[in-house]
């Protein structure tokens, strides 16, 4: 049924995470995981001094794999050692950055590795409670993780007096309910605290005052899953993988879009983007040319085709004007219209804005409205500059990075692909009918009243008569909930 295997083949190079699999599809069963050396690092960690654990992770030099790239060892060190309050470990498994699916695969294939990583982190900071906050949409990964936690409990890795050490540890796998913003750490903690998942001001940082106003370590799935592997191979050896000091280790890159072999590829940091796309991903299907690459999730500034030799590491991406972000790489072929992409991306952030800060709440909405008018053929001179300027006014003016996450990529689309936007203002312009986003764009246009009547025609459009067949919402309110994308 599937045109390609569910999981991408393991590539060349030194693999830190996938090597644990030893060629197996997954290690969901605890016996298989222990057979592969699993939980040995937790055993060692329980016997070790917490300070030694933190030192080893600092020596390893791993930077956070969630998006911001903060050094994980440093973060561990920020947790106060003499807090009168309990301390908590929270694993951020709310993987919602568009086009990122690495954490899902880690959970599906190596759930115990993540649990072991969480427990090692808990031991290092002296916590007795750990949480894995997994996004609500990841229902099957949640089931896998919960089953793994039950196995770990049955084997004595969770519960009271683990390994006779006197250390008690509880792990709760907490399933969210659909909110991109909960991937932001303070919003995640609000959500886990039983409130609406809205961000809060930093400082105080979670390390000082997080869950229940107590010191809390928040780390991404990939970061925590890597901890047992660093301890296993030795921090010095781990530090030699990738690029010395600045971008140490491997990263799981989620490759999608117009690509022959999409999937997750674990590669050394610093691997050229071209190698990921061409050698691992098999290039663009249909012999089409590359137009652009989104390098780190939809929140990141875009790279043009000529930047394909940029290295997949923190510094190279910064030099190229973007960021490594969540490590998800989306390949766009020559047919993609950047104005249509901008609309689709802006709609996402409009939908996900939590509404707390005005620039984000209002800015995302106005950008969507202006882009919709532009691509529907009703744009006015100056609209493209206006779209750019509104984004520039959202950027840096909000409490959390969600507004920036729309502004940064959209400004880069306009900077790098201005003709894709300007051409909509030319009289008689018709969008190319092979644009992969044409159908989805037409849907967005249909829902906006200010769209110019009798505007451009679109490829793949459903006829009005096809859409206007009798229908009703079963709650009996005609038209209720007909907004489409869930506004």
């Amino acid at each position: 049924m599937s045109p390609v295997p569910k999981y991408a083949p393991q590539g060349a190079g030194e693999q830190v995470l996938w090597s644990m699999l030893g060629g197996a599809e997954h290690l969901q069963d605890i016996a298989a995981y222990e057979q592969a050396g699993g939980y040995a690092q937790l055993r060692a960690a329980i016997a070790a001094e917490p300070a030694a654990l933190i030192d080893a992770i600092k020596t390893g030099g791993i930077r956070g794999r969630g998006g911001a790239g903060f050094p994980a060892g440093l973060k561990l060190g920020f947790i106060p050692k003499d807090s009168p309050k309990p301390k908590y470990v929270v694993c951020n498994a709310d993987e919602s950055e568009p086009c990122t699916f690495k954490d899902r695969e880690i959970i599906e294939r190596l759930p115990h590795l993540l649990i072991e990583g969480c427990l090692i982190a808990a031991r290092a900071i002296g916590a007795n409670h750990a949480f894995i906050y997994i996004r609500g949409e990841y229902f099957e990964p949640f089931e896998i993780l919960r089953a793994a936690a039950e196995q770990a409990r049955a084997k004595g890795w969770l519960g009271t007096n683990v390994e006779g050490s006197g250390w008690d540890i509880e792990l709760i796998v907490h399933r969210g309910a659909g909110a991109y913003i909960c991937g932001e750490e303070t919003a995640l903690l609000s959500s886990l605290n039983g409130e609406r998942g809205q961000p809060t001001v930093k400082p105080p940082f979670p390390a000082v005052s997080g869950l229940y106003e107590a010191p809390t370590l928040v780390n991404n799935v990939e970061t925590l899953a890597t901890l047992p592997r660093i301890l296993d191979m030795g921090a010095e050896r781990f530090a030699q993988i990738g690029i010395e000091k600045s971008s140490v280790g491997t990263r799981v890159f989620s490759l999608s879009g117009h690509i022959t072999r999409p999937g997750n590829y674990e590669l050394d940091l610093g691997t050229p983007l071209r190698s990921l796309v061409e050698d691992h991903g098999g290039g663009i299907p249909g012999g089409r040319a590359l137009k652009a690459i989104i390098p780190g999730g939809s929140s990141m500034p875009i790279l043009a085709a000529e930047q394909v030799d940029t290295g997949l590491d923190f510094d190279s991406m910064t030099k190229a004007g973007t960021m490594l972000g969540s490590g998800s790489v989306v390949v766009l072929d020559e047919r993609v219209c950047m104005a249509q992409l901008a609309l689709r991306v802006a709609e996402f952030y409009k939908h996900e804005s939590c509404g707390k800060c005005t620039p984000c709440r209002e800015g995302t909405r106005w950008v969507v409205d202006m882009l919709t008018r532009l691509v529907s053929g009703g744009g006015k001179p100056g609209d493209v500059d206006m779209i750019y300027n509104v984004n520039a006014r959202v950027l840096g003016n909000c409490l959390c990075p969600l507004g920036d996450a729309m502004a940064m990529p959209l400004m880069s689309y306009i900077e790098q692909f201005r003709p894709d936007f300007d051409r909509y203002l030319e009289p008689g312009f018709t969008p190319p009918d092979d644009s992969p986003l044409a159908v989805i764009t037409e849907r967005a246009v249909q829902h906006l009243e200010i769209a110019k009547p009798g505007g451009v025609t679109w490829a793949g459009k459903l006829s009005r008569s096809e859409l206007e067949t009798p229908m009703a919402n079963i709650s009996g309110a005609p038209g209720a909930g007909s907004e489409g994308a869930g506004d």
Partner: protein
Amino acid sequence: MSEGQQALVERIETVAGRYPHRKSAIIPALHLAQEHYGWLPPEAFEAVAEALDTTPAFAQSVASFYDMFHLQPTGKHLIEVCTNVACALNGAGQVLAEFEQQLECHAGQSTTDGQFTLRTVECLGGCGTAPTVAVNNRFREFFEPSQVRPLITELKATPVGFAEGEGKV
């Protein structure tokens, strides 16, 4: 409080007992309530509030923040088509159009017979296997428009979309 509500309160209390602070269990509580009723009617918020020592209004305010909680009734089967970037680039628009034609309803609506609710969702994390469709929370990946009609036939023969207790929290 009805017997059904009382049973729900007890289930929520069991789950809440695992958390250091009971209020943290509000999302699991709402998941449990939604499984029980199929959506979140006023009785659901009463039960959640009773179990977690809060108010129905607060429970509703939390529920309304999250996309997966339904504040109006849904069909028996929930079909969610991802239309985010990777899926849209790989034909999600065509998949959605086919669902709309076959089900005779727009995204965001339910069919008149109460069997299906169709909606679009943002990135599901099925980008490497795009397009991805979630059917009663379970992913169907590499989904082609030609698979729409067989899926609807399959679901029509499935009596329950999402069984209570299946989504243990």
